[in-house]
C-alpha cells in the first residue's frame, strides 16, 4: 500500500507511515490541511514533497479512525474558513506506539545498512 509518495525518484511512503507523520505534526499544535503540507515539506527539508491534495484523504482517514478530530475556524479577510485538526487521546497513544515501532525498524535498518 504505497499511494502517498515523496518525490518520484525517492522512497515511497506507505499509508501508515504517512499517517504517522501527520500525527507527529499535529502533536505540536492544531493545524489545517494547508499547514500540514507546508510543515511536512519544510520539516523534511523538501524530501517529503507530496501532491498537496494527498494529505486530505489521509486526514479524513485518521479522523474516521478517531485519531484526530477536526473543527472549522472562520478566517477574516474573505478567505475561506479552515478545518483544523487536533490529536485525540487515541491519536496520542497511536503516535507513541507508531513512533516506537518506527524507531525499532529504523535501528534494525541502520544495523543492516551498517550506518
Amino acid at each position: 500500500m504505497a499511494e502517498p509518495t515523496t518525490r518520484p525518484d525517492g522512497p515511497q511512503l506507505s499509508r501508515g507511515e504517512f499517517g504517522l507523520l501527520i500525527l507527529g505534526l499535529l502533536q505540536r499544535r492544531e493545524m489545517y490541511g494547508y499547514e500540514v503540507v507546508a510543515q511536512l515539506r519544510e520539516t523534511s527539508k523538501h524530501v517529503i514533497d507530496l501532491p498537496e491534495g494527498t494529505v486530505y484523504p489521509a486526514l479524513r482517514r485518521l479522523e474516521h479512525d478517531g485519531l484526530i478530530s477536526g473543527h472549522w475556524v472562520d478566517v477574516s479577510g474573505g478567505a475561506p474558513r479552515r478545518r483544523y485538526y487536533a490529536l485525540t487521546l487515541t491519536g496520542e497513544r497511536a503516535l507513541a506506539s507508531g513512533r516506537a515501532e518506527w524507531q525499532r525498524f529504523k535501528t534494525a535498518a541502520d544495523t543492516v545498512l551498517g550506518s
Partner: protein
Amino acid sequence: MSAGLAPESRLRAHVQAILERASVPPEHRDDLAEELYGHLWQRWQDAAKSAGPAADGSDGAENSVEAAIRSFGDPGSLGRDFTRAFHSRMYAGTIGALLPAVADLGDEAPDAVMLRLFFGSLLVQDIVLAFVALRTLTPFRLGVTLASLVLSAVVVVLALGALGRAQRWAVRLALPAIAVCLVEGCAELLSGPGIRINLLAVVALIAALPAMGPELAAWTKESHPIRTRLGIPLAALLLGGLLIPPLAPFLPEPTAVGPADLSLHVNAACTVDGSGLTTMTATAQIKWDRLDPWPQGALPVGSDALTSPVFDGLYTTVLPDPSFDLSSYIGATVDVNADPGPYWQFVGPADPNWSGAPVVTGPDGAALPTWVMFQGGTAWSGGLGVPSGLMVPQGTLVAGQLVTVQWVFQQQRPAPASGKNPPMVVVSYAHMDHFLVQGVATCTNAGVGVQVAPLAPWQQ
C-alpha cells in the same frame, strides 16, 4: 478545465473533478469540497503573492491558478484515495474498483446501449429461471440454483453499473456470456419449440460485434483496470448463473428419500372354484417413513390430487399369464378380433367412489379416494396391459401413514399345460422416476418390497 473561467470557478471545478471521481458519503461531500477549495484558494493566493506585482495581470493570475491546481494533484488519483479513506479496504477493492466514481461521460456509446440490453435480458432470464426453479426443484438443487442465479444477478447489476461508468471490464465480461447464451439458446432451439428470451439479443450483438470493437474501445479508454483475481471470479459467477440452472436437475439431491424409507408388504389369499379357476385377493401395505421435502419445489404448481404434476406409481400384475407373449406385440399390429382377452381379470373389490379401481384405505380403515383418482387405464389386450395402475399425487403422501391397497383378480380360463406355475402377484411402487420397489407374493408366501431395476417401458 476551461482557462476562460474566473480563478475561483476554476478552483471549484478542480474540486468538483476530484469529488466526481471519489466515492464519498453525501454527509461529508460539502465539507470536503469546502476544505479542498480553501486549500486551493490559499495556494493560489500564495502563488500570486510570491509572483509579485505582475501576478495581478491576467497572465500572472492564470499562472498562479495553474500552479495551485498542478501542485494539488491528479483528480483521478485523489478520487481513488478519498474512496479508500471513506470505505473499507474490501469495499474499495471490490465495489469501489468495479464501480469507480467517474466524471460525467456525456452521451453513452450506442454499442454500450446494446450491451446494457443484453445484460438486462440476462437479469430477466435470471428472474424467470428462479421462478421456474422455485416451482420445480428439490431443496439442494434449488439452493444451488438460486445461489447461482442470485450471484449472477449481482454481477449483472454491477456490470450494468460499470457500463454506465464506461468500464472496460463490463464489456469484456459480456463476451463469454454472449458465447454461452448463444450455445444454450441454439441447443434449446434445436431440442424443442422453446426459445431463450435473450437469444435474439445475442444474435443481434454477434452480428454487430465487428463494428462494436473500435467504438467501445474509444468509449472505455478512461476505464479503470481491475485485477485478474477480481475479474475471474466475476466471470465465473456470471457464467455459473447461465450454466447451473439447466444442469440442476442432474445434480445429486442429498435430501431425497431412498428405497429404505419405503416399506412395502404384499400378500395374496387364493381360492379355487369347482371348475378349477383361481380367485386371488392381493393386498399391499405401503408406508413411507419420511417424504421428500419439496418434491415439486418450494412453490409447487399444485400440491393437491388434481393439480400435482408429480406422481408416484403403483402397478400390479398377476403372473403367470400363458397368453402373454410380448414378442408378438413388438412392431406388430394387434388383431383385436383374435385377442383372447386377459388370462387374469381384475374383478374388484371396486372402490365405491371410483368404479373399477382397487380399494385404498388409510390406517383407520377409511378410504383414501385421492389415491385412486388417477386410476391408470387397464389395457387388457392380450394380457399385455397391467391389471391395475394407480398414480399417487405427491401431495397426498403422509409420512408414517400405513396405506392398504386391495385387488381381487380372477382367472378367466383354465391354464394350459404350459401354464401350471403357481400364480403370483407382483406389486411395484415407483417413486417418481427415482427408484422402483417391488414385492412379490404367492398364494402361500407373503413378500417384502425390495429395490429392483427401473421400470421397463411397458410397466410404466
